[in-house]
């Protein structure tokens, strides 16, 4: 038992994949762009194409930043749980090995926020 208790202490986790109506959570953070105060949480179907995530929800979430329009996606560096990651834009999230509550980050060399402040 991983908690001190007077009797049996077992509760189901509140956020398992089965509770998201067919979606999986994916967290995405843009390095050096703290205008967005935190990484984002998205619910996506695992069959969604990675490229569609970038062009759709990511454009909507990060597009306010003037740097976003200047991103050269061929040069973007990706990380999954902090380790280098090479997503295939044409494959689905599941085919890219992304599981429920995975966290990915992307870095866009040369683009480092408002006046270089990482904002």
């Amino acid at each position: 038992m991983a908690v001190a208790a007077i009797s049996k202490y077992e509760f189901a986790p509140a956020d398992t994949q089965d509770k998201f109506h067919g979606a999986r959570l994916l967290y995405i953070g843009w390095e050096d762009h703290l205008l967005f105060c935190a990484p984002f949480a998205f619910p996506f179907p695992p069959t969604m194409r990675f490229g569609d995530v970038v062009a759709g929800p990511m454009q909507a979430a990060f597009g306010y930043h003037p740097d976003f329009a200047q991103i050269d996606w061929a040069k973007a560096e990706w990380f999954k749980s902090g380790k280098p990651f090479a997503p295939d834009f044409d494959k689905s999230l599941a085919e890219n090995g992304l599981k429920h509550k995975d966290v990915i980050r992307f870095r866009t060399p040369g683009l480092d926020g408002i006046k270089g402040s990482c904002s």
Partner: protein
Amino acid sequence: MDMQVAKKKLGLKERYAVMTRGLDWTPSYQKMEDIYPYIAYEGIKIHDWDKWEDPFRLTMDAYWKYQAEKERKLYAIIDAFNQNNGHLNVTDARYVNTVKLFISGISPLEYVAHRGFAHAGRAFPGPGPRVACLMQSLDEIRHAQTQVHAISNYNKYYNGMHDFHHMHDRVWFLSVPKSFFDDAITAGPFEFMVSIGFSFEYVLTNLLFVPFVSGAAYNGDMGTMTFGFSAQSDEARHMTLGLEVIKFILEQDPANVPIVQRWIDKWTWRGYRVLTLVAMMMDYMLPKRTMSWKEAWEVYFEENGGALFKDLARYGITMPKCAEQIALEKDHLSHQAWSTFYNYAAAANFHTWMPDEDEMAWLSSKYPESFDKHYRPRYEFWREQAAKGNRFYNKTLPMLCQTCQIPMLFTEPGDPTKICYREVDYKGDKYHFCSDHCKEIFEHEPEKYVQAWLPVHQIYQGNCFPEGTDPTVEGFDPLAAVLKYYNLEHGRDNLDFDISEDKKNFAEWRGQATKNI
């Protein structure tokens, strides 16, 4: 004829013994462990409950008399404030947002503290701590009531505080203070006493009450200042109780020391994370500033808290290890927090704004190492965009920390340009944290935190829409549905201060009070 001799009154000490220790008895037909089921499982060993020394020899009759006097004075001032339209004497209407933060974020915690101390008092076999917990439990429910009474005057005139109790259980950022207390009252009685009685009341309460109350005074809010002073005189007693509890536990058995140290480490960190709200209030929300968050942290934690931990060193207790990281964050915390609320101004029950030029100069002088380099460019960009009619409202939900439930807004210790990501795999699921300390708290008791009600995940699970909502209908607007579930009126209770009804009304009402129009 016998002379009638007046019966000698009991001396203070005797009266105290009769009204506290005299209330206790040894059960004869029930087992002690059946009556006090919570007393052993945390691992704390108490050998002699009579060694407890009451910090204040206060009895219930004296408590009633003393508090009733205070209440009479408090309500007289609140009445005078209300009848005199005291709300128009505050510095400007931005100030009222601190009161909204207080009523929705802090006052419900007073009520939970009342329940927590009642429960802890019931759980202790010793009459000394039982009586002390009873007094504090009563204090806490009075605090909740007096705060509601004082602040309800503002609710007649300003938006966002019409349903604070409902909001406390639902609105995303209020899950931070709520989860802090939920964690504490679902712990054992000794952990509760160390978490709230010691770590929060003794180590951190000055950082909560002093800035709020002196902030109220500086900004002309006599109502809030008065309930603050009324509460603060109780807080002194609570702090003494917290210290007495910890000394009592530590003196009873050396085996208690590592357990207590772990609790101090955990609860100092959890309490500090909740104080993120206070940091941004001090640096951004008070039109007339008292001191910066960084200065307050240095005075109340580093100096006062440092002296306290030196005093506890003889028991083998050391400074909470999180103090090192907090020292690195003190230059950044309030700016990062305010940026977050600026992002999510469409989903909070108070308004946000960008500091004006004078305020930026103040921030720059208080934070010479960090403000101009890291935060000013961001603010100037937001201000320019807002002037062009493109005010930034972040509509995508943030990733949250599993333990403190705050959006993952904190940066790596020592590097304010990199978000701090930590994660753990537990029983086939991933869990994410804002810091090493939140991660460690989870790893020690994962079963407790896997159940966390994280607002973002609950929204995505469809659990934060009003009853009867069908999210599959065409044109469904999830944000609108979530705001209805919060009981927030879009465009009135939220968004930027500059376009708010609060700002407009305050200017008109103050105009009527000072001009002959």
